[in-house]
């Protein structure tokens, strides 16, 4: 940011790409959806609490998908829930990001052999960041969110927004919409 500030005769001004300014705003208001499916959600709450205080990075929770930028898969996902999560994801406005938090959301975790548990969130959602742990500590979740910030920083969003941004690798759930 400092590099963008130029000194002029009547004060300083900022010279930069619109993309950079947009990304600066976007990465510092990374709102996440208050949504959890199992024990990892406890750690998600902890991350929003005063000790970890995700708020200091501009990350506040929203209780609706329509105002959220990030979907944190916090917990074990069953097949019955998967369709509902996908529906929540579809309701989020672009640009949106997905974090798989904990072993369960990464691979099914210790319930991988179960008949009811999806073996990883990336089988039905485009996951951006995987956080290992059972559950991951709130520091890890903050780090995961910061990785999303780094990703946002590099994104040529304006260019991306003009083109069709549909990710061809995005897995879907059949017959949902």
């Amino acid at each position: 940011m400092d590099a963008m500030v130029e000194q002029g005769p009547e004060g300083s001004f900022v010279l930069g790409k619109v993309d950079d300014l947009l990304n600066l705003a976007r990465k510092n208001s990374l709102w996440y959806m208050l949504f959890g499916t199992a024990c990892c959600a406890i750690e998600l709450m902890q991350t929003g609490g005063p000790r970890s205080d995700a708020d200091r990075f501009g990350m506040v929770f929203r209780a609706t998908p329509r105002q959220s930028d990030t979907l944190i898969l916090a917990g074990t996902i069953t097949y019955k829930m998967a369709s509902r999560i996908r529906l929540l994801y579809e309701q989020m406005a672009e640009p949106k990001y997905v974090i798989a938090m904990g072993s369960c959301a990464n691979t099914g975790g210790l319930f991988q052999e179960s008949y009811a548990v999806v073996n990883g969130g990336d089988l039905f959602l485009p996951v951006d960041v995987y956080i290992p742990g059972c559950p991951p500590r709130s520091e890890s979740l903050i780090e995961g969110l910061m990785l999303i910030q780094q990703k946002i920083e590099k994104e040529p969003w304006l260019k991306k927004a003009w083109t069709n941004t549909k990710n061809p690798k995005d897995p879907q759930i059949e017959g949902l919409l």
Partner: protein
Amino acid sequence: MTSEALIDYVKGLLGDKTKWADPEAGDNFLTVASEDWKNICQTLATDKKCSLTYLRNFTGTDYPEDDEIELTAHTFSYSEKHGLIIKTRISREAAVCDTLSKIWPAAIWYEREIFDLLGVSFNNHPDLRRILMPEDWVGHPLRKDYKQQETYRGIPTTRPA
């Protein structure tokens, strides 16, 4: 009632319609024929001295070697402070049984669970739908010969290597 007194009382009440577990086998339970299932449960729930008004747990077990599914109801009486376990066995192929939901409304959800996981249908159940698995799931996971489908709505059920 103490557990022994209750067993004696129920033996007197139901006569030769019951089979009792070997006393060494841990918790004492009685097994009844599936045709008597509903009536006996009704009797035990409404009889003044038994008054087993609370269905604590209701579940099923698959026994493919016997070709049978065993249903187990754990009941309890808050007024008399005693409990009783009642079992019945039904055939694995037909897998039908009378509902207990008119006696204990709590059975509605338990029976949905047994229907979902073991494929037992309950006659006259008010709302027999799957409860844990999605509506369009194939098969009943707690049957011993269950094979999971390979994909569900395009989601692979095993993690690709």
